[in-house]
């Protein structure tokens, strides 16, 4: 890329999901059709339009494709006009190529040439006014003024940077190096946004899911407090619910934890880029490095917060699980006590029955002995047999008791 191209111009880094060779070729064709007279030179597209010249290059970054559009507006334009022309030419692409609207990251850099720090500062203010965005941070990096705006409408997939050499010719090498680092940061932002997109729906689904679990476990705890015993089938269904939800929460925690680790690696790459930029302070502006650092920490904190909240909910489920288990164990103990009590009563009844049986046994034996005696008395005593039999009854009873004791010894 010639030095003239990115000085006094406008650069856009746009990161999209990786395109295969057929998709890339098709994409280039459609991109070329948006500009009249576009031609392919060494894999890049070059075109001239009303606003100036445009060069579109493609770079592969592992699983992402970076589209680098460099606009060289006609010479002698003010910063505001440069921005308008540059953005106008690029937005023309997006209307025809929906893929670009779904880009993981779009980073626009206004790159006006400056004759001095004061000149750069004036252009910086003009840039901020034109884009209606407050400046988040500004500093001196690689001999250039580097500045960034607060993302418009909180859109983290579209960022605006400003990069302008503070001296007309001296800082060109530094300017190129700063652009490379900004490209690295754009790549990291794209990776972070992709990560965010992959987990966004799970994180959105968390809140209503949490509400549903809270309602359900509150009702369980309320049911456990009621004096009427909870049916075994009900408890079983509660345990099934708790186990199912715990499994879901564990899955969420593990997926988001993986994202957190990946986000941490991305953030460390951003920090490396910021270190290489070695940004110094400019006037009383807060530095870009601080602003970028804060932004990326917030991105990882989101995962951290999610994990903490999910673990807290999981702990609540575990508590209810414990409550149900305790309830079950108390019910079990009650059941055992009831069983023991009923066994004792049964034993007492059995002993009573046995005693009655013994008494009947004695009585039968006594009757039998008396009958035997009566037969004997009938033969021996004749008319006195009745009296003798009556007298014999107590003897028979005593004898029966004696025999019974002998038998049950």
């Amino acid at each position, binding site marked *: 890329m010639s030095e003239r191209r990115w000085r006094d111009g406008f650069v856009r880094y746009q990161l999209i999901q990786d395109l295969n060779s057929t998709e890339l070729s098709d994409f280039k064709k459609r991109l070329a059709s948006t500009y009249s007279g576009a031609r392919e030179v060494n894999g890049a597209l070059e075109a001239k339009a009303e606003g100036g010249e445009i060069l579109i290059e493609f770079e592969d970054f592992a699983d992402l494709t970076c589209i680098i559009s460099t606009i060289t507006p006609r010479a002698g334009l003010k910063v505001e006009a440069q921005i308008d022309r540059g953005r106008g030419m690029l937005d023309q692409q997006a209307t025809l190529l929906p893929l670009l609207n779904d880009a993981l990251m779009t980073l626009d850099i206004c790159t006006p040439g400056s004759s001095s720090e004061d000149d750069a500062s004036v252009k910086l203010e003009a840039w901020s006014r034109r884009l209606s965005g407050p400046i988040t941070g500004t500093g001196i990096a690689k001999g250039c003024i580097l500045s960034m705006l607060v993302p418009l409408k909180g859109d983290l997939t579209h960022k605006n940077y400003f990069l302008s050499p503070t001296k007309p010719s001296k800082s060109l090498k530094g300017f190129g190096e700063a652009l490379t680092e900004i490209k690295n940061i754009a790549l990291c932002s794209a990776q972070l946004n992709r990560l965010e997109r992959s987990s966004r729906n799970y994180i*959105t*689904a968390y809140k*209503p899911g949490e509400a*549903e679990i809270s309602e359900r476990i509150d009702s369980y705890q309320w049911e456990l407090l009621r004096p009427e015993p909870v049916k075994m089938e009900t408890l079983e*269904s509660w345990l099934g619910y708790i186990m*199912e939800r715990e499994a879901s*929460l564990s*899955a969420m925690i593990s997926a988001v934890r993986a994202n957190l680790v990946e986000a941490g690696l991305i953030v460390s790459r951003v920090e490396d880029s910021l270190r290489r930029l070695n940004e110094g302070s400019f006037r009383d502006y807060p530095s870009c490095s601080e602003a970028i650092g804060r932004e990326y920490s917030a991105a990882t904190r989101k995962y951290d917060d999610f994990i903490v909240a999910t673990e807290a909910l999981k702990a609540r489920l575990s508590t209810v699980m414990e409550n149900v288990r305790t309830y079950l164990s108390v019910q079990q103990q009650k059941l055992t006590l009831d069983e023991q009590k009923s066994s004792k009563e049964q034993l007492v009844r059995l002993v009573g029955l046995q005693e009655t049986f013994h008494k009947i046994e004695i009585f039968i034996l006594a009757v039998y002995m008396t009958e035997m005696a009566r037969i004997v008395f009938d033969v021996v005593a004749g008319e006195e047999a009745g009296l003798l039999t009556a007298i014999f009854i107590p003897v028979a009873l005593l004898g029966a008791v004696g025999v019974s004791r002998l038998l049950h010894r």
Partner: protein
Amino acid sequence: MSLPPAPKSFYEQYRWDPEEAKRQAYEFGRIMGQNLMRAIGVVDADLGGLVLVLNEFQRRVHGEPNARVEGETIKMHCRGFCPVMRAAMTHDIPWRWLDEYYALPMFNGLASLFVPNTRVRLLTAKNRGDPECLYLFEA
């Protein structure tokens, strides 16, 4: 209730053949519906019977049994975590694929036992960032 195959094995088997996935899921839905009808003794093949079976299904998968008839339609809200969502997260399976080729055709198959040609639509879906999945069964 004979449950349909686990989402992971289903996805692995049919990921490259979505139309066959739809057909299979539809059949699983019918089998599952028949088993549920037998289990809870539903005999009426109308929207009321379908509501009973849908709610029984939700109870068995620990979901929210809130399906109800509204005119000529049935609405069923699912805001809690569901097995489809868990499978998508755990096995890194596209959530939308599972909803489109596994869950929806299954409900279609189940509904067809009651009202033939029932159309099942997801008016809102958690996989699209909505707070709940809202199923609409149109007779």
